[in-house]
């Protein structure tokens, strides 16, 4: 999981004798380092839990995975939360939080329905573009407020959570958009599959891959981590902190906007209550996936696996013989377990660094 730049640095004896290194550069080959890094990663542990849950659930009930419906639900159900978790992870990495995603999602879900009703000729791709744009704009409002007023994102996005929800409530009222109001091509998108993999899942995986690759390799991507681990140092270092924070919120808003459209395609009915409370699930997915709530560490891969695990556990509980009323309790235990695990891992890392410091001193 080490970025290529560090590999050349470690091999190319960049460190002179005068430089004191806290941790000695690894002498392993890049390939082995990648493998050991992967094996020790936080993401793998959560991935193993996901595999274990899936295996146990499938052993109890074969249809959980090995039926057309089971397979499809296994892949499709997590895809919406996965997208929200990716956006949320980027925001959390910069030491912020976006609570308004559920309300943004509701706004664009209703917008989708209204566009199809009021502008019958509009191509589907235009609806997607408009909703992405709407989500990005709402995210931009969050980002501008947070970046320019130096106020905590928790408060700002809690405020916009109410504002955006209020807008969709007054706009939609008790009105519902039903499947009959929308073109069948659009609704088919929610059920269509390519090589047995549902289109919704493909969309979310592509987004995940792009965002993950960007954060992992791009210079500006690494800046998100720098900002999250020490905001003041990031300013002193000359990073454009405001711009990155605005980018994070715009991305989170745009993805929430996309989720709104996909939700409509998948479920066919939209009411003004769509997505209420999902913001905390997205934060939960991020936390389970190993992104530190105080920013600076974690990956979107982890957040995505966290989202997958959350949804899969919910679906697996009935086949494990636990009444599904208890699913939220299990989710709670999972979140607490994940943060305790993070604590233990970071303690270990800390003591390792402290040992290294003593040795070099």
């Amino acid at each position, binding site marked *: 999981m080490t970025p290529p730049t560090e590999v050349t640095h470690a091999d190319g004896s960049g460190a002179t004798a005068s430089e004191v290194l806290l941790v000695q550069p690894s002498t392993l080959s890049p390939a082995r380092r990648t493998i050991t890094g992967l094996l020790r990663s936080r993401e793998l542990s959560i991935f193993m839990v996901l595999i274990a849950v899936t295996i146990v659930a499938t052993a109890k009930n074969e249809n959980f995975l090995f039926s057309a419906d089971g397979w499809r639900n296994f892949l499709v159900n997590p895809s919406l939360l996965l997208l929200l978790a990716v956006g949320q992870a980027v925001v959390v990495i910069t030491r912020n939080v976006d609570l308004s995603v559920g309300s943004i999602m509701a706004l664009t879900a209703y917008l989708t329905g209204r566009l199809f009703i009021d502008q019958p000729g509009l191509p589907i791709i235009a609806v997607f573009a408009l909703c992405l744009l709407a989500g990005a704009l709402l995210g931009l409002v969050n980002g501008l407020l947070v970046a320019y*007023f130096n106020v905590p994102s*928790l408060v700002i996005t809690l405020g916009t959570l109410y504002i955006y929800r*209020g807008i969709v409530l007054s706009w939609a009222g008790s009105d519902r958009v039903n499947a009959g109001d929308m073109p069948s091509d659009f609704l088919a998108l929610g059920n269509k599959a390519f090589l047995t993999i549902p289109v919704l899942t493909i969309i979310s995986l592509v987004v995940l891959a792009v965002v993950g690759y960007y954060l992992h390799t791009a210079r500006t991507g690494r800046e998100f981590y720098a900002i999250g681990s020490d905001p003041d140092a990031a300013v002193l270092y000359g990073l454009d902190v405001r711009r990155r924070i605005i980018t994070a919120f715009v991305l989170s808003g745009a993805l929430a906007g996309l989720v709104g459209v996909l939700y409509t395609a998948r479920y066919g009915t939209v009411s003004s209550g769509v997505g209420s409370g999902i913001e*905390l699930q997205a934060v939960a997915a991020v936390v389970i996936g190993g992104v530190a709530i105080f920013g600076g560490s974690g990956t979107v891969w982890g957040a995505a696996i966290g989202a997958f695990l959350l949804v899969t556990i919910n679906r697996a509980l009935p086949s494990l013989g636990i009444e599904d009323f*208890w699913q939220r309790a299990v989710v709670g235990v999972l979140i*607490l377990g994940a943060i305790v695990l993070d604590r233990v891992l970071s303690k270990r890392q800390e003591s390792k660094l402290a040992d290294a410091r003593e040795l070099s001193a």
Partner: protein
Amino acid sequence: MSSTRTYTAYARPLWWRTLVTRESAVITLTALVIVYSILNVPNFDGPLTLKFLLQDIAPILLIALPMTLIIVTGEIDLSVASIVGLSSVLLGVLHEGGLSIPVAGLLALLAGAACGALNGFLIAYVGLPSLAVTIGTLALFRGVAVGLLGTKAVTEFTERWTDLATGTIGPTSIPLVMIPFVVLAIGFSLLLHFSTFGRGVYDIGLNDEAAHFTGVDVARTKLILFVLSGAVSAFAGIYYTLRFGSARGDNATGMELQVIAAVLLGGVSIFGGRGRLHGVIAGVVLIGVIASALRLESVTVNVTNIIIGLLLVASVIATPLLSWAATRLPRRSPRPEETTPPKQATPAGV
């Protein structure tokens, strides 16, 4: 936050510092909204309005008290509404099982305190971030509540007790629940504003390491606050259950955000170290009055959401906006040299 702010704060005379505060701004705004509503909203001064208004905001008023202290220490408790739900379910289940309301209520209160103790232990002694922990226990406590009762509801409660929850003080239209609230409000004010413990709460919010070195038991203080939060939330849950005569697993879902919105509106800084209880109480009343007045005007409930959200955003951006405006205006009186605080990188607290 920064030391420069403390110095400039003392540049003003005493009367200015006591009268021109965020709290008085919120209180003034609340008073203005009340006066406006009485004059312009039909039936706002009717006897039932006050009763329902106070009954509606009572749970939020109650939970906002410990929540204020928790946010002043720089922590947050998102699990309060789930504790409300859990205590509601426990009261229902235990009462159905044959226990009397007082005994079942006491057990529900203890359970609430235990929930708070779990939060407090993980945050104060294990050292986990409160935002993450209480998102976890939000799901956990709500999950146990829903798990215990499923989609059922317990609606059989002794009438004497439900009457108590909906009753008013004598011939007035002030609900009885205001008595425990006033007692708790005085208790929490004494604790926060007139005790060593309360000074410690502010110290922790300003700098918990420094607080530790001045002899404040940081972990113990936080644990006590979370236990109080759990117990008060459970009390609010018992009131909520008896008022509506219904114990359900999903009672008070989403209330945590309403409580936090009210507390922040009341002038408490999310970074910790700043905020006073009378401002918070005014904040809760303000939200309640707006909701109630709009309902009487038969404006849809939805507009209330927008107004609460706008107020919340306005309340945090007002200060930076005003100080920005102040730098643009010519100074009338010479004030101590104000060193520009180091440019803050980001809103550091999540």
